[in-house]
Every structure is written in C-alpha cells, then in structure tokens.
C-alpha cells in the first residue's frame, strides 16, 4: 500500500503544471472556471495547442499520435486540468469513436479518420439513442439496408449532443431484423453532409441548445464506412460505453466545482457573516467534500487495478453513480448559496465578455441553470438506475 505518487509521477505533474501555466489561454480558463459557455472556436483553439504538445489523444497508442500515459498519469492530467480550468475535450471523436476505430476499424479507416480527429477537421457526434431506444439501447430501429456498395439508412437518432457542430456521426443501425436484437446491429460512420440528413435542435430546460434530433431519410452511406463486421456493432458499442462511463464519474470536475462553491460561500453573507462560517451550511459543504474524498480514492483504486492488469468493469458503474450524485449535490449547494438570487435568469451575465454590472455575485448567474442542466448527469451515459442494475447483476449476482 502506497498512497503517494512516485518521483516520476511527481515530475510528470510538474511538467503538466508548467505546460498549463504557459499555454492555457486565460480567457478560456476563466470561462471554464466561471461555468460560462464555450464556443466551438474556444474548443478548437485549445485542441490545437494540445495537439501541438502531443497531449490531445491520451487514450490512443503512440503510433496513431497518442500519448502512452499510464492510468495514473491520465489521472494526474485530469486533476490538474480541473484545477486550471482546462476545457473538457468534446469526447465523441477523440475518446469514443477513435478507440473503436483503433480496436475494430480497418487500416484505411484508421488512416482516414484518426488524423482528422487530431487536427480538428472532423467533429464527431454520437448517434446511439433513439426516441424508442434509451435505456433499452439494443431495441434501436434506425434501419440500414445494403444496396450494392452502399447502405440506405432510414430512421431517427435523438439527444445528439452538439450535433449542430458536427460533420460526422457514428451510429448504431439495424442491419438484421431476423435475429436477437443485440445481434442485428452495426456500427456505421456517417458524413452529416450526406443528402437526406436533417438536424433539429432540442432546447433543454435551462434554455440551452446542446442536444438535437437527427433524421435520416434514404441516406446513402458507403459500405466502406462500416466498422468491423456487419451485425457485430453491439460488441463495439459496449466497448465504447465502458470508455464513456469511466470518464463520467467526473471527480476532477467535482473538485473544481467544490472549490468554486467554497469561494462563493466565502463571499456570500448570512446574518452578517460569510456563509461558509454558518454552521449548517459549512456542514453541508463538509459532508460533500468528505464524500468526494472517498470517491476520489475509490477512483484511484480502480485506476490502480487497471494498471495492475485488470479491466475496469462494473466498478466503474458504481463510480459513475457516486460521482454524479456528488456533482449534483455541489450544484444544489451552489444554488442555495445565492439565496433569492437563484431566481433571476440573466442570460447576458452568463457570457464571459459581459461587461455590465453584476446583479449580485459575479458567478451567480449560471448557477440555477447549471443545477438544472446537470440533472442530465444521472440520466445519460446509462442512467443511474441502469448502472445499479449492472452492479447488482455483474458484481452481486442478483
């Protein structure tokens, strides 16, 4: 048992810090730390800097331009990123479709898509969910019918995050209706500019345009865009989901949000004293900080077991549930910390370049919206109920 970083790991952390001190644009960091909106351009600007450093594709093997970090190094990177206000990489290309292409794609697909992900030329989105296929993903109906060198795709995807910015979508489609539902699914890479695709925004409860519906009407997709084998897509899809889940615990993001909350509570006043000195409020903060400490260690234990040769399994489901509950609890407290100022919905103050007077605290405006927006954390990436079903089946044998 050794809870400390090794000398090499500490040196790596210094290197990360030096890089972020020098290269992270202050305006982007300020937006991340103040929970402001980031533009597509912000993401692209930061991606270029990361790529230049060779640190964008942390999950990829070196031969494709990845960086061969150990799980502990990745963890150090995540922690420092949150502390500094590094924008979270849009995961759909680099962390989702790329590992699938690397593992199951053919050489031509690797040569074509991976460099374009690194350069930012392609923006990917994830076309898994459908109106009738949410938790029961395998019941998806979007149909792909082989016609010579093409598939003809018809159907609808939904909840497609940032689909409005994407030029590529990876989709689960049904290629066989004769077999068990999991066995008739294929994994297709689709150019969003193909005729027959239309994207309709879905506005979320906080007024944001973050998700979309994507419609496919007789869309011609070259057979060359099939990943792996026809009808084997479910295996690839599940492989991707474990990747997705591991990141969803969001320990680093919770640490950043907690530190933001403590600063906020030090500025807000109650009974003539800073709110953070109020016994009941400080106990609420203390409790979530303790939970977060425990979850962070659980996270590290799971990471360490991977390094020792294991694969993160159903344990990552447990971590996703805890991690999202903690993040939501922090958002709840931040909203409470501003009292009646949780009510005003000041969209103008949510933009970082707002230069008017703040109605109350400079960080207050996005807090309610964020509390509501982050209700999604326990719904997407497999709802928390589904994660618990996985744990009870896979670990407890129930």
């Amino acid at each position, binding site marked *: 048992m050794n809870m400390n970083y090794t000398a090499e790991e500490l040196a790596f952390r210094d290197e990360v810090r030096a890089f972020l001190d020098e290269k992270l644009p202050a305006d982007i960091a300020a937006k991340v730390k103040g929970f402001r909106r980031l533009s597509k351009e912000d993401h692209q600007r930061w991606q270029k800097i990361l790529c230049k450093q060779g640190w964008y594709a942390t999950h990829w093997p070196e031969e494709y331009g990845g960086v061969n970090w150990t799980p502990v190094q990745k963890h150090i990177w995540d922690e420092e990123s949150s502390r500094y206000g590094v924008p979270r990489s849009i995961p759909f290309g680099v962390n989702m479709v790329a590992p699938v292409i690397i593992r199951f794609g053919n050489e031509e697909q690797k040569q074509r898509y991976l460099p374009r992900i690194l350069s930012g030329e392609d923006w990917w989105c994830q076309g898994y*969910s459908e109106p*009738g296929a*949410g*938790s*029961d993903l395998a*019941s998806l109906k979007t149909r792909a019918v082989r016609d010579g060198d093409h598939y003809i795709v018809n159907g609808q995807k*939904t*909840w497609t995050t940032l689909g409005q910015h994407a030029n590529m979508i990876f989709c689960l489609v049904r290629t066989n209706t004769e077999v068990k539902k999991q066995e008739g699914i294929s994994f297709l890479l689709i150019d969003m500019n193909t005729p027959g695709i239309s994207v309709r925004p*879905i*506005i*979320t*409860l906080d*007024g944001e345009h973050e*998700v979309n519906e994507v419609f496919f009407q007789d869309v011609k997709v070259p057979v060359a865009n099939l990943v792996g084998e026809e009808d084997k897509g479910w295996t690839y899809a599940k492989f991707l989901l474990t990747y997705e889940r591991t990141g969803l615990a969001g320990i680093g993001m919770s640490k950043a949000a907690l530190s933001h909350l403590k600063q906020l509570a030090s500025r*807000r*006043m*109650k*009974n*003539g004293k800073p*709110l953070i000195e109020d016994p*009941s*409020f400080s106990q*609420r903060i203390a409790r979530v900080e303790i939970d977060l400490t425990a979850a962070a260690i659980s996270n590290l234990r799971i990471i360490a077991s991977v390094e020792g040769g294991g694969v993160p399994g159903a344990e990552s489901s447990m971590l996703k549930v805890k991690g999202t509950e903690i993040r939501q609890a922090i958002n*709840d407290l931040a*909203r*409470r910390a501003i*009292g*009646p*100022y*949780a*009510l*005003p*919905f*000041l969209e103008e103050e949510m933009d970082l370049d707002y230069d008017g007077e703040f*109605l*109350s605290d400079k960080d207050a405006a996005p807090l*309610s*919206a964020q*509390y*509501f927006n982050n*209700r*999604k954390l*326990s*719904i*997407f990436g497999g*709802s*928390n*109920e589904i994660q*618990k079903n996985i744990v009870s089946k896979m670990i407890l044998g129930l």
Partner: protein
Amino acid sequence: MDFQLNEEQQMLQDTVARLVRGEYSFEKRLAFSETDLGFSADFWKQLSELGLTAVPFSEELGGFGGGGVEVQSVMTELGRGLCLEPYLQSIILGGGLIGQAGNDSQKENWLTGIASGELKAAVGLQEPQSFYDLNNIETRAEKNGEGYVLNGRKAVVIGGHCADVIVISARTSGDSRDTNGITLFALSPETAGIERRTYPTIDGAKGCDITLNKVQVSADALLGEEGKAAGVIEFQAGRAIAALCAEAVGVMEIANELTLEYLKQRKQFGVPIGKFQVLQHRMVDMMSELEQARSMAILAASVADGEQNDERRRVLAGAKNVIGRAGQFISESGIQMHGGIGMTWEYNFAHYAKRLIGINHQLGDDDFHLERYANLLQAS
C-alpha cells in the same frame, strides 16, 4: 375536526380550476411568459371579473372576506396551471401589508384598486445581503422636511417590473439586523430616483432589483407606524408562506400526475417502465411527499390569518421546510424518471420542476426554515 372544504370554498376552488383549465394551456403559458408583462393581462382581468382578486379582502372593499382556506383554494389551482399572474405579490403581500398597516386614505387609494385587480402591487422586503431574513434591512429612510429620503437596494422583487405600487421596507433607525427601526413605505415606481433592472426568472416569471437613489417621498408614503413594521412584515410574510405552500401543492399534484402517467406509458425492455420496482418505490415516495406537503399546507392555511405567536411561527416554518424538501424531491425524481424528455423545454414537466425549485427560493428555503424552526423548538 373536518378536512373538507365547505360548499362555498369548493365552489371557489372549482371556479378557479375551470378558468385555469380553459385559459392556461401549457403552450399559452410559454407565450405569456415571453411577453414583456410576463403573464396574461387578459387572464388577470378574468380573475378580477370573477371576483377572485378580491378573495381575501373585506366586504367593504368589494371583497369576499376570505381567510387562509379560501386563499389556499385559489393558490392551489393557480399552481396546477403554473400561472404567472402576481396573485401572491399583489393580492396577498401588497394588499396584506397595506390592509394591515395603512391608514384610511391609503386603503382607499390602493386597496380598492388592488382588490379589483385594476392596480398591481409588488413588495420589496429583501435586500442583497438579507439571505431571506426580512429584518436584515439596510435601506435607509431619513426624515427630510415633511417627508423622507430613501437610499438603498431591494432584491428580487417579483412582479416589481409592472407594479403600480411597490411596498418596501427601510430603516428609520437601528442597525442592519435589528427588529426595531423598520418602516414600510408605499411608492409609485415612477418616483424620481427609483431604478429597476428587470429580468426573467428561472421559473418563467419576471422580477426586478430596485435601486433607490435619493428618493424623495412625502409623509403619506409612510405605511403604518415608523420603526414598527417588523411585526407587520412577519405576519404578512406568514400569510404569503401559507399561500406559497398551497401553490406548491398544486404544482406537485400535476408533477406527480405527469410522472405517473409517463411511468405507465413509456416502454423500455418491452414493458412500461412503471414495472421496474425501483421506479415504483420512487413514485410512491413522491406521492407520500406530496401528502406530507398537503398536510402542512392545510395546517399553514389554518394559522395564516390567526394570532401571531410561536405556534403560528412554528407551523409556518415547518410548512415551508416540508414544501421545500418535498418540492425538490418531486422535481428531481420526476426529471430522473422521465429520462431525456424530462430535460427538455418543450415538454411541460421541467417547467413544473423549475417552479418547485423557484418556490424554495421565495420567502426562505428549507434550510432557512429548518433553522427558524429549531430556534423555536420547545423544550418539551
């Protein structure tokens, strides 16, 4: 003991219910919310024509002489429709403060109009530093010739953007959290030196912050006795808490109906999701939270117009605490069980969820009222 509404009360509730059903579809509400006014002038007029704006006022004022239970009947139905009209602000709070503290000529000037719905009142009782404590007042009112000059800032005045009269609290003496020295003034928002910054609220209404910069008012703006308003404010805020609790119950009723309906209708894995026991139990908890809330709303209504004492204080703090907790549980559970659909603007559930959270930030959240209750705990 009898928990049934009497015939008149039932008729009153049915009248509001019919009106809301007829006029307040979800689509219309979204449209009302987006106007500058932020609610429906037409619906307000209909409330007034049916005498509903006059419910809590005395018969001399053309009112109905209604008490806590009558107000509860109206508010629950307005809650079911997520109605945006300033009933709480104008009728209960504005009308209540002027009615309790005002002199005859002030009542004549304002109350008849408020009761008939022709005038709209709003109240500025909290400030940026107040954190729900209505005695935490720093706005100063200084005697100046025949009148007063006011300086300060009032926070989150719901309905203040369109009010004809705004009742505000200010300090004529004492320090920021003293009970003594708080004084009420009734102001026209057009008075020189008043600036309003208007904004929409997260739950679809509109409000404003008010800056008072050397606002000169005459002596007849003074409402009630100088320096002695804390008791009046506490009493009227208590009536408003009871009314908010009743509104919350209406909001929760619909939130639960929508969720239950969804559990029966949404299918995953070949069965309605309501077949999953974990969701069944959560729905059962939502139902029992609603019943806890309903019980406290009834209790709150029963003391709303009663004598001010620690028992009333405890009941109201307890009610608001339960409403806050139940509201958040129902809001979060309902979104969760709706899955992605619960996260959207287009589907009505999220708007009920947002109102429930919004209610928790009006007149004190569950933490605030827990602390208040704890301070009033009886040793035995």
